[in-house]
Structure formats: C-alpha cells, structure tokens
C-alpha cells in the first residue's frame, strides 16, 4: 500500500469561490452581511428596518435564501429593494456558488450594503463561507436564552449578535445574563445589540455600528482608489 499525503480542505472549492466573491464585492464597493438566525427570529424584519435607517447613506441589495417560496423576496420587492431569491430545495444553507450567481445580477453604481438572508437554521450556515464581510446572528427572546449553549458553532462566527423581540423579554422570561454568558463562552464577546423590530428600540445603535463597519471597508477602498 502506498500512502499519499493530501491535506486538502474538503470545502476548498467553496472557500475558493468565496474568495472570488470577496474580490468581486471589494471591487464593486459592496459590504456583504451574512444574516444567520433560526426560523422566525426576525431576519427579514431586521433587514427591512436597517435599510429604512440607512437608506439615505447607501444603496442596498438583498439575497433571500429559503428552501422554498418567494415570500421574503416579494416583501423586499414591494418596497423597491433590489432582491434575488435563492430557493435551496432540500439544502439547509447557502453556499458561495449560489451567491456568485445571485450577486452578479445586481447593478452596483454606488456604495452598497448587500444583505444575504441565510436559510433559517442555526447549524449548517456556519460551515459555508459566502465571501461575506460580516456574519451576524440574530437571536430572539422567543426562542429562549439557551441557544448559544445548544448551537455554539453559529455564535463562533458571529461578528455581531442581535437579540430581537427585546420588547417581549419579560413575558418570555428571557435571561439576558445567561444568554450573554453563553455567547462569551464561545468567543470574546462580539458587539451585542438588543433590538425590537416591532417598536424600533435599539435599531439606531445597530444601524450606526453597521454604518461604521461599512465606512471602515468602503472608506478604505475609496481611499485606495483615490491614491491609485
């Protein structure tokens, strides 16, 4: 028997495509935000509210990932937001190749924030890079404070964590400290925003943070272009 060393990442093809996506987004002045959450946490609502907050500063585009339906894409389209729907069939996550195709359909004529609404799932989306700049995880008071302990891998990748439906905190007996301890046990505590898409609380802080991240990336790109 001869033994051949391989040492190659099994998700290498996806990683390579993600890298190409990243280059594409950088050259088009696009900040890409991968939004991950359980079904019903409020991904679509959060994206809509964020776009409302920052509409006068950036252009926006949204890629909707769902196993089936165009429900979320229709909501975006009704508001005039450029949107592409990806239906994954039986797949529980988006991958870099799906994003490459969908992202190529938008026109980027000014600095853009592209939201990728991943499939509602706290497991598999964390394994597949898409070429994103930021990974955000939206938790919600209705799903309970124990999720970081049960699904640590998704929190491991979070650049920011949002707790949505914070207006229901008391009714849901959501233990904020237990939740935060669970996240902090996975990685150094990322920025945390407590929001309510229903009454609007906390959304300004979140939008402000996202705008500053955007400036950090796109401002840098513009600086380089000016120098070059």
């Amino acid at each position, binding site marked *: *028997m*001869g033994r*051949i*060393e391989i040492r190659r990442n*099994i998700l290498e093809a996806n990683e390579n495509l993600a890298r190409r996506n990243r280059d594409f987004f950088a050259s088009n002045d696009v900040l890409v935000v991968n939004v991950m959450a359980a079904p019903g946490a409020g991904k679509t609502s959060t994206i809509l509210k964020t776009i409302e907050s920052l509409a006068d500063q950036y252009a926006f585009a949204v890629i909707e990932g769902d196993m089936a339906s165009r429900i979320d894409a229709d909501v975006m389209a009704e508001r005039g937001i450029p949107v592409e729907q990806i239906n994954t069939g039986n797949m529980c996550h988006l991958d870099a190749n799906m994003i490459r195709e969908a992202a190529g359909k938008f026109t980027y004529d000014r600095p853009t924030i592209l939201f990728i609404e991943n499939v509602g799932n706290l497991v598999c989306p964390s*394994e597949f890079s898409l070429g994103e700049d930021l990974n955000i995880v939206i938790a919600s008071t209705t799903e309970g404070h124990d999720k*970081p302990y049960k699904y*640590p891998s998704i929190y491991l990748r979070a650049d920011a964590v949002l707790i949505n439906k914070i207006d229901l905190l008391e009714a849901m007996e959501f233990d904020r400290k237990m939740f935060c301890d669970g996240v*902090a*046990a996975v990685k150094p505590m990322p920025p945390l925003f407590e929001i309510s898409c229903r009454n609007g609380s906390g959304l300004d802080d979140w939008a402000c943070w996202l705008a500053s991240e955007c400036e950090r990336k796109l401002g840098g790109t513009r600086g380089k272009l000016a120098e070059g």
Partner: protein
Amino acid sequence: MTAITIVVGDLTSIVDESVQFYFNIMTKGTILEDAILRFKRIAPEFVCTDCGHLFTGRSIGIRCPDCGGKSIVADKGQEFYIESVEVDDGAD
C-alpha cells in the same frame, strides 16, 4: 484496495455516518466503490484569551480551568480535510 483518511474536528457539524452514507451512494460504480473511509476525529482545544492557557474540552461553552476566564477561542476542532489516500501500489 483504497483507503481515504478524513480529519474531522469535533466542533464541526460533520457526522461520520452521514459522510459515509453519501460516500457509498456517490462512489457506486466508480473506482472508489470499495474504498474504505477512515475518520480521524480531532478533540477540541481551546485558548483562554485572558491568561493564554491552552486546554482541551468537550465542547464550546466552557470556562478556562486555570483562571476561570470566559473568553475562550477554539484552537483545534474545526478541521474538515482529506489527510491522505492509501492506494495499492503493487508493493505488497
């Protein structure tokens, strides 16, 4: 006979039995049909960002056993790669 060694970290969502199941389906009728899959599981190792202590653990969601710090970063356990392939080279 061909044998493929796959390294899987315990912090990934990869399930050996599931990989084996799809491997069997995908290799049917190919030269890999009878290939053996060997799984090498990697136990998680963590670094405490407060005191630098390196330690093993069962899963994420733990405290540093040395200083009690909560800022723990996974150092090992997220692997998913093909380590090697063993093929019959007629040298037996």
